[in-house]
């Protein structure tokens, strides 16, 4: 137990745990409390009976800064949750955070960004369609445009009445496909914990 330790050592451990408590502050309450308790138990067990200042320093150093510890917990838990999530917003946010940790994670984030942007753009054209009837799939002059082209003169619309059902299906396939791809890529991430910086 930490309360049998000398006051200075006790204060050092307490300060570490308080910093950890703040760092996990945004976690669900039960999870946060669990983490702090577990680390507290770890410190007590490592120190055992004989605890001097150097031993405490060594134990805390081997745990790393509490903020880094909290970051590793958050990343592991977020990615696990994201690998099962069907929420584009959650997947985008999580991969965005993950993107800072390396090139592969950044590439995954780019897939999320592109896939969901295209899905959003297509959905926007669907919402516009009742108000702006010229919205459609326009081809001509070597280009293919969803929406309303600036110069309709040399272009024609392909889908006509089928615009809404076809675009709805396309948007769904792109968003759903992006979601499944992200889930898969997150699941296939390296099965160990790199140090998330």
């Amino acid at each position, binding site marked *: 137990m930490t309360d049998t330790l000398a006051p200075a050592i006790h204060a050092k451990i307490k300060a570490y745990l308080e910093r950890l408590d703040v760092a996990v502050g945004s976690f669900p309450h039960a999870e946060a409390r669990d983490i702090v308790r577990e680390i507290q138990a770890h410190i007590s067990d490592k120190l055992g009976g004989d605890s001097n200042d150097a031993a405490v320093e060594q134990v805390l150093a081997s745990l790393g800064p509490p903020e880094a510890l909290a970051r590793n917990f958050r990343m*592991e838990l977020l990615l696990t949750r994201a690998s099962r999530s069907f929420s584009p917003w959650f997947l985008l946010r999580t991969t965005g955070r993950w993107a800072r940790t390396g090139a592969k994670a950044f590439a995954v984030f780019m897939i999320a960004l592109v896939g969901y942007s295209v899905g959003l753009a297509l959905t926007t054209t669907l919402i516009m369609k009742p108000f702006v009837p010229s919205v459609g799939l326009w081809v001509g002059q070597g280009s293919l445009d969803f929406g309303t082209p600036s110069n309709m003169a040399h272009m024609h619309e392909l889908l006509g009445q089928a615009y809404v059902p076809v675009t709805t299906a396309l948007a769904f396939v792109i968003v759903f496909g992006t979601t499944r791809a992200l889930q898969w890529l997150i699941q296939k991430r390296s099965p160990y914990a790199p140090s998330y910086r």
Partner: protein
Amino acid sequence: MAKNGNSAPSDGWEAQLRKGCLEMAILAALWDRRLYGLEILRALSSRSKMDIAEGTIYPILARLKAEGLLQSEWVGAEAGHPRKYYWLTAVGRRRLKEQIDSWMSFSSNLSAMLQPIIGGDR
């Protein structure tokens, strides 16, 4: 990530190899017993010579639990404070067996390739 591969190339390679096997080693440590975090660290260090930074084990345990491979419970100990014990779920046992299968076939195939080199050196 780059932090770990910065010493001699062979050290970086070995570190990557160990890290890649870390999950399997954690699951293996829990095969026939319930352990708390520090005991898992000690099992890794003494039985597989895997010394990892102590702070890294707890986030990994949290993930393995979130993935349904482990279950945990707080147990009050004679030490005076409760400890969080982990054990394998059925899913965890299955995952471990799959990993062992891949590991065994991978390492025996590679050994077959390395054998002539080891023999030829003598």
